[in-house]
């Protein structure tokens, strides 16, 4: 088979996947050992992270090189697009599990405990009434002690504005890319990364505030603390990943890797960024506001 240009590219053998398996397994065995209190676990985790990073750099590097050499035709490009879309869908379902937990707690389990289900209330927590069960609650045993929630109209509202603006700036970057204006493209990308990082900075600040004496809101603050930190935490983790991806893409934009009709990587990251944006809107409404 000759290397016909314009055909579907099928790579022959790759050592990156097995390295990825070794990296991930080392990382997870290390983490599990750490949770079990074994010695040397942190070291193992570190090695796992290192191997995984090498794999990511190597794998993406290989793909970028192949892309620059023009080995991918339109059909390969479509495969990537479908792949990324379904990956984002799987991420949506991951968040759906935690949103599901939030809604279940608010609509069912807390009201049931508080007496909507009489026998549950009588047998388990007869003193837990509708007043003490009003959301936000840390449950009938008031786990984690008294706490107060964060004001949604301060940092969270600001953060909403930041993320929404970053959705605009990345679109402006996309337009610049399509027009072939590299200066504006890089400028808007840097702005997007900056907005993402500012969001993360505010999130960190807010977590410190929450854990402080004034709010005393922690992961241990019953079901409210659990859902609050799990949802915002996983979202923050995804924003971090997104920001790293954006930074890489910004560098690639500056190097001139993309043309007006061939920039899948840019669009993939833009889709991902819009996805974390939309998840945040869900968080802002259902975790902070209502």
């Amino acid at each position: 088979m000759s290397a016909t240009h314009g055909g579907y590219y099928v790579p022959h053998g790759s050592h990156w996947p097995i390295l990825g398996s070794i990296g991930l397994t080392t990382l997870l065995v290390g983490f599990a050992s750490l949770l079990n209190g074994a010695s040397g676990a942190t070291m193992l985790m570190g090695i796992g992270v290192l191997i995984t990073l090498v794999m990511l750099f190597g794998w993406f590097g290989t793909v970028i090189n192949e892309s620059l050499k023009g080995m991918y035709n339109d059909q390969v490009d479509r495969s990537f697009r479908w792949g990324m879309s379904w990956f984002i869908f799987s991420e949506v379902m991951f968040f759906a599990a935690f949103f599901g937990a939030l809604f279940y707690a608010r609509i069912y389990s807390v009201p049931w405990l508080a007496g909507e289900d009489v026998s549950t209330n009588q047998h388990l927590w007869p003193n837990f009434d509708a007043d003490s069960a009003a959301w936000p609650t840390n449950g009938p045993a008031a786990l984690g002690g008294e706490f107060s929630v964060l004001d949604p109209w301060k940092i969270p509202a600001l953060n909403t504005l930041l993320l929404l603006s970053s959705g605009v700036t990345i679109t402006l970057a996309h337009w610049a890319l399509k027009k072939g204006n590299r200066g504006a493209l890089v400028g808007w990308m840097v702005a997007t990364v900056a907005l993402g990082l500012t969001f993360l900075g505010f999130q960190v600040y807010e977590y410190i505030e929450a854990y402080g004496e004034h709010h005393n809101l922690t992961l241990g603050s019953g079901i409210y603390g659990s859902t609050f930190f799990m949802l915002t935490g996983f979202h923050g983790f995804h924003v971090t990943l997104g920001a790293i991806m954006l930074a890489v893409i910004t560098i690639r934009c500056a190097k001139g890797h993309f043309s007006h009709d061939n920039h899948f990587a840019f669009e993939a990251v833009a889709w991902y960024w819009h996805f974390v944006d939309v998840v945040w809107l869900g968080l802002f409404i259902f975790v902070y506001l209502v």
Partner: protein
Amino acid sequence: MSTATTHDTHHAEHQSGLLRWVFTTNHKDIGTLYLLFSLLMFFVGGAMAMVIRAELFQPGMQVVDPMFFNQMTTMHALIMIFGAVMPAFVGLANWLIPMMIGAPDMALPRMNNWSFWILPFAFAMLLSTLLMAGGAPAGGWTMYPPLVLQTGDAFPFLIFSVHLMGISSIMGAINVVVTIVNMRAPGMTLMKMPLFVWTWLITAYLLIAVMPVLAGAVTMLLTDKFFDTSFFNAAGGGDPVMFQHIFWFFGHPEVYILILPAFGIVSQIIPTFARKPLFGYSSMVYATASIAFLSFIVWAHHMFTVGMPLTGELFFMYATMLIAVPTGVKVFNWVSTMWRGSMTFETPMLFALGFVVMFTIGGFSGLMLAIAPVDFQYHDTYFVVAHFHYVLVTGAIFAIMAAAYYWLPKWTGHMYNETLGKWHFWLSTLFVNVLFFPQHFLGLAGMPRRIPDYSVQFAEFNMISSLGGFAYGLTQLLFVYIVFQTIRGGAKATDQVWEGAKGLEWTLPSPPPYHSFETAPQIK
């Protein structure tokens, strides 16, 4: 659409030795790896089943202690579901989908390698828990809190191995979807696709939708145990029942992930040996899609006795019963395909027919379990065990066996030993019924599942069941012998292999070239 394939010219066609299998990006190599891994796990999980049946051979405690018994039931399920049945289907998808749709390979070959090569690591992690302080997970494969939170050192390893299996499944499923939507040969329209491709497309969608939910559920278990959260703790306003809801939102679609590809296999095999086209092709597609849709709205029928509001019981009961409609469409279509066909009964056809009859028995017992007031009696008894083993062993596993016999000549270029194949079928069918049929009676009489000891009134049926179990287990060694004999040699298979076989994979030589369709075929 382009019609040619390019390859990385820097490498030789094949890497030699073991590393070929580690680095491979070829759909056939990866398919083979999946299938052999699944066979290995089938025997690991099977060995655990033998321990269970040995303990249950007589009332009283004789072979293992109760804690180890519980580890066996838990690990047997996890290994058979995630290690044996799912990888077997993904292996078949890898081998067959590119050949069936006229593609050179899977759409994302490197990721294909990774989805396989995560599995050996995930199962090494899971199996290593047998040696840990506190033993392997013993709270059941459903991992219900608060019981599962009492697991010893194995706990985080259980959670992380489930995460890894999820990552593998999601990547595999994305690859299947992308291959089917983007890699079809010109003229291969959606409604011309073989049924196996259709059922896998829908299965892949289910996988992408629910594996992340399982990941979320087990992550909450992890944080409840180690990071102070109270998702499943009523003291903090959470609810252990919430875990069951989230788990079964994954778990019920998972049940169809384990059976839809089997429907596809049987829909390929029956027309071949009845020498008639599949009856009601489009209704098969719609039935599969309907089953997939319904699978998302029936989950709580696994939890009828947990204390749900009456409206919940009713909704989930009726929604569950609705599934019998599209499933009935399928069974009637298979029967109608055979009607006045020119039938022959080679081994794959025997397994496919065994599937139709015995899967239907499992379907009917499922319908009985769907009736909420009746389920109050059946819940967590051996009736449930009998039900899901009929759909999973005589259903999924029989279909996988049928597929192995049907396509083995295509894969290896050799015919398997037909006499031995028939022996394998008849012994399996006899013993699997000796094994599982009496469990219906045990369950109806009230014997609970997942308990190592039982009241003496259950002794006879348990002994019969155990004897059937040992014999069924031994019979599977015959399958291994047949497969390896076929790989090593045997009568030369023709390209078409079966007189009535239709479809693109039968136009390729047996065995097919390393890259299936380098130039896409034209479908009329």
